[in-house]
């Protein structure tokens, strides 16, 4: 994915820092177009772990419905950019207000035609 994200923004830097720490790689070697699965080699459980770290760093919850969007590093940054904007916070503020912390989209109750991309566990 060719992303328009600004790698030098504070939000981007925090994402790269979080990803680099989780992946044990130098953030300089990570790029917006890197696919979490194909380039970074993450399976679905590792992707969930990575998102867990991102949630922790940005103090928010990412609902399952949004999970399928998080395919590349750039997509993660864009998603977080949208979320922080939607919550009325400055881009550079990684800590949204408590009232926004647990915001969830309204649940879809009846049938859906799309197949969620997470939930791969066997259980």
């Amino acid at each position: 994915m060719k992303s328009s994200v600004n790698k030098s923004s504070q939000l981007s830097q925090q994402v790269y820092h979080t990803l680099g720490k989780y992946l044990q790689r130098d953030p300089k070697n990570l790029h917006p177009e890197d696919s979490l699965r194909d380039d970074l080699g993450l399976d679905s459980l590792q992707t969930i772990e990575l998102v867990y770290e991102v949630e922790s760093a940005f103090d928010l919850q990412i609902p399952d419905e949004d999970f399928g969007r998080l395919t590349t590093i750039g997509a993660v940054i864009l998603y977080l950019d949208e979320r922080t904007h939607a919550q009325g916070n400055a881009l550079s503020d990684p800590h949204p207000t408590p009232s926004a912390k647990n915001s969830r989209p309204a649940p879809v109750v009846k049938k859906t035609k799309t197949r969620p991309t997470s939930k791969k566990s066997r259980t």
Partner: protein
Amino acid sequence: MAVRVVITGLGIVSPIGVGVQTFWKSALHGKSGITAISSFGDFPMESYRSRIAGQVSDFRLPDPSEDKFSSRVDRYAQFALAATREAIQDSGLDLEKEPAERMGVMAGVGMGGMMMGERELTTLYQSRKPHRVHPNFIPTITLNSASGILALAFGAKGPNLTISTACSSSIHSIGQALQAIRLNQADVVIASGADASITPLVFGGFCSLRALSTRYNDHADQASRPFDRGRDGFVMGEGAGTLILESLRHATRRKAKIYAELAGYAATNEAYHMVIPREDGSDIARTVSLALKDAGVSPSQVDYVNAHATSTVVGDDVEVKGLRAVFGKRLNTIRVNATKSLIGHTLGAAGAIGTIVSALSIQTGTIHPTVNYDDPDPHCALPGLSTKVQKKSVRVGLVNAFGFGSNNAVLVLKKFT
């Protein structure tokens, strides 16, 4: 010729009924046992992605004058005791006449005594008083606390094992019971499965794993929907199931009622991933084939499958791929149901409850409905699955269970003739 093993007693604690009669009536009515979790004490429920579970709401501890054991163990083992008491009564076994050394216990447990575990951990970390850790903490949380207490309560001095293979635990406990009788280590084995760990930490853990349904928090009874296009994860449940297994010779000698023959068992591992199944279903197919071979039946004889069917997106897909690899087009004519659509995923109890369902289906020629199968997913189409009760004489049935740790287990039950 191998020793034949039969099922002579059943007992159950489930979110749709305590006791086999209540459970079966509810199952045939397609009653859902999935409800909202009212609270985890002071924990904010809105912080949990999933807020629903298959909860046992009508379980009462027996009077201590009748049962001195239940008050000493965690909820899951209390369930196991209650299910086993019912199963033994149902079997008509006279424990005073049975040689204790020839009676074994095999228990399947996924999580174990997490209620006391979490409570004591919290207390210790808050109080910082290690000398106040409860003396019964260790005996309660060791995973074999259920198999141990069952032996004490019912005087079973034969082989006693606890098998913990996550969601397939009690298929293995039943399978190992079969093997113990075949090897002449016991005449009778109490084969049980139990779990009750809808606790703040365990439930939070499954939420974090993104394994649970989150889309139906306000419509709990719609959340567990195996093979439906709208499925979005499993629903955690709690419960216990116990089966009394006996050598045919032993059962015949005492003129026992026989529900079904336990004819085959297979256990394999995919050596693939801790929580993700191999996507082509090949190892599931291999497990089914091995179980059928062990039972001495061919795929063409199978008329019923109690599917693992947790309602996860990939898990249900892969199970059907595996079944289709074994049965081909004939899968379209095999009756299938998903007990978890009614009660959620009871983890260590799931295999035992699925086996009880299969035994009842063989005995009654009735297959309970699978609820919420409103919009069949074409990726895992199962024409033999219905939202209505199906009448079908079942001669050979399969019970599937697959668990974390890449493990698979399948049982084969036959109509006893």
